[in-house]
């Protein structure tokens, strides 16, 4: 935080703090701390021990002053997570809207840059391998690296995975590690139960770090499965950072194109609930197996 080196800045900081305190977003203690930092012309150093959590009012709260038809605004807000009906301060957003925007943006960035935790992989009993992208930065800068397994990964899969199964399930971080941790605990058991009770032979699911959708083709070529399904974190938005997609393909080869993949997207607690998605994916996989085709080819058979 910047040093308040003139009176105008102090006044601005003070009014922002007061506004936040008034809205209940900042405790008196937090306000005093920041104010004194500002007044002392000293750089503000957050104290990690007393770091305060800021809670936002519910999204559906009316933010427009004196709305002409409050019911209409509420009804429209209910239809979309988009930032509508948030009022304004002159030509600018209100403090609350701006803070929420910044916070959502931070959540989205975390989803991309953080890794799926080791603790999570252990808890879900998932073997972990990596794409040929060695780091997050490399993964983000060079998409083609995320589409191939690393040499070590290819060796490990060849060694440990069951071959010639009907279905191989992959969990891929893609662009949102948060989506994996939020959805897999409910989605995976539902999907496994569905496939097993339909008598479908499934290989042990495993995790691929820094992976993109196409990495499934590489895996399929090693395990020789009929259907490979990737549960992959979607590019996070400001609405949710936890959305997951399932990409499925029947026997990919060197002639495979994007249209050959079947996708079910928008899996998260505000979209398709993950457990329900698991049951639905079972049906889709059954269709793919019986049609021996996926993507557009599958739709054309229907």
């Amino acid at each position, binding site marked *: 935080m910047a040093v308040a080196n003139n009176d105008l800045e102090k006044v601005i900081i003070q009014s922002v703090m007061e506004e936040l305190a008034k809205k209940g977003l900042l405790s008196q203690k937090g306000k005093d701390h920041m104010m004194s930092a500002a007044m002392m012309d000293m750089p503000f150093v957050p104290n990690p021990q007393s770091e305060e959590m800021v809670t936002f009012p519910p999204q559906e709260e009316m933010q427009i002053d004196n709305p002409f*038809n409050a*019911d*209409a605004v509420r*009804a429209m807000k209910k239809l979309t997570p988009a930032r509508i009906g948030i009022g304004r301060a002159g030509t600018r957003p209100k403090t609350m809207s701006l803070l929420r925007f910044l916070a959502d943006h931070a959540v989205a960035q975390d989803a991309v840059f953080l890794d799926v935790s080791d603790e999570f992989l252990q808890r879900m009993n998932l073997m972990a391998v990596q794409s040929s992208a060695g780091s997050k930065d490399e993964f983000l800068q060079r998409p083609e690296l995320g589409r191939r397994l690393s040499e070590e990964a290819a060796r490990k899969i060849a060694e440990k995975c069951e071959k010639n199964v009907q279905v191989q399930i992959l969990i891929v971080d893609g662009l949102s590690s948060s989506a994996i941790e939020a959805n897999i*605990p*409910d*989605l995976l*058991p*539902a999907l496994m*139960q*569905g496939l*097993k*009770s339909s008598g479908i032979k499934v290989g042990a699911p495993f995790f691929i770090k820094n992976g993109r959708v196409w990495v499934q083709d590489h895996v399929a070529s090693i395990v020789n499965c009929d259907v490979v399904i990737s549960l992959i974190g979607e590019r996070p938005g400001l609405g949710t950072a936890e959305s997951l*997609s399932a990409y499925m393909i029947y026997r990919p080869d060197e002639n495979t194109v994007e249209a050959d993949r079947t*996708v*079910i*997207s*928008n899996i998260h*607690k505000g979209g*398709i*609930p*993950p*457990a*329900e*998605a*698991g*049951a*639905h994916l*079972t*049906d889709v996989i059954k*269709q793919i197996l019986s049609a021996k085709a996926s993507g557009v080819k599958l*739709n054309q058979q*229907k």
Partner: protein
Amino acid sequence: MPESNNQRITSVGIDIGTTTTQLVISQLTIENTASGSLVPHVEITDKEVIHRSQIYFTPLVDRDLVNAVAVSKILESEYIAAGLTPEMIDTGAVIITGETAKKENAKAIIDALAGFAGDFVVATAGANLEAIFAGKGSGAALYSAERHQVVVNIDVGGGTSNYATFHEGKAVDSSCLNIGGHLIEFERHGDRITYISEPAQTALETTGQRLQVGERVTLPQLRPVVKAMAECIVEVLKTSVHSNLTHKLLMTPPLQLAHPIRKVMISGGVADYVYAEKEPERMAEVTVFGDFGPLLGWELKVSLDSAGFVLEKPNETVRATVIGTGTQSVNLSGSTIHLQETTLPLRNIMVVSPFTAVIPETPEMIAEVIKSEMIQLQVAQTEGVVAIAMKGPRTMSFLDINSFAQGLLLGMQDYIVNAKPLILVMEADCGKVLGQCINASATHPLEVICIDQIEVDNCDYIDIGKPLMGGRVVPVVLKTLVFNR
């Protein structure tokens, strides 16, 4: 797997009221509206009325007995006029409304008509349901959704006034008052009273008026009692503290009035006289249908105006209920449908809601709750099929959904042992996974229908029709029967 993306179904609505009987035939288009990358979502996307019957006087054998044979003759001739046979009807509803529903033989008539009017037609009745259908048919529901304003639809018929309050397209409140335009009968175009019904007698006594059968009355003599009735109708909108007369004539609990009301729509036979340009000036104009409907309409408009309510014009007046019945009675629902086709349609499935509070955590505790409710309702002793209704599992986690499935199987042991289908209706979006969990946990193959995203508040019975869209959805009709109130 055949997966056509839309299908048209033909729906009939039949309304047998105190005064009139009518029918409409509509064509409903059902479609999968979800894009390919989402879970399919089948819904009704278009409703078109393809045939409106004439408006018949309800045939009566005597004052208390509807002439079922004559009613079925009316249906027969209207089907011919529409170029349809009963086999061509996919779904629909018969609604017995107003005073008629009070009459002891109503259930028998419904049963007779349900058989006559095609395989999937279901019978329904009930003052609250009637009010809601009328408000949907009149356009009040749509008005509230489009304008984001609360509106009350009052369907004023021959025997009753049915209130339904709509907020954002949904009925949030309803009530029924025993006031209608046919409660006193006259010689047509004349001034001689031929019949005074019980509620009219009550109104006369309470207002200190003296009118008798056989008597000839003038407009000034008739006006006070009609005015009093109109004011009762308005009073229900204004306050929950009622006059003696209103209190006596209410057939259901009054409106809760949780939402402030300004906009009012009137439908039903009396509605056209509410929206008339001028008031009836002679008795002959009042008794044009052998009753006092035109005068009640005018007086109602006067009362509403002076109480400060804003009258909105409905899309349909006298046909609102029948159109609502024909086009709005059907819900579609998908999710898990594991059924032999011959099991459907199922009619009059009793809805059991065992979970009043939070759903417990373990399968054993869930089973306990279900068992005690089933014993209390003596389900085992009846032949009937029941549906378990709930908001959803404890949470949407797979663990809780799976526990619920196990608890359900345990709790319903004695029921499914008789090869009855296991029917679940819930609000939460997890019908597929719950159905999957039930099948995975069951020790032998079961007939299961798991219907999600349906609200079953205030619903006593449901009907489930034959599957549509290649077995992906079933038509579901929720109903509240007047007979047990």
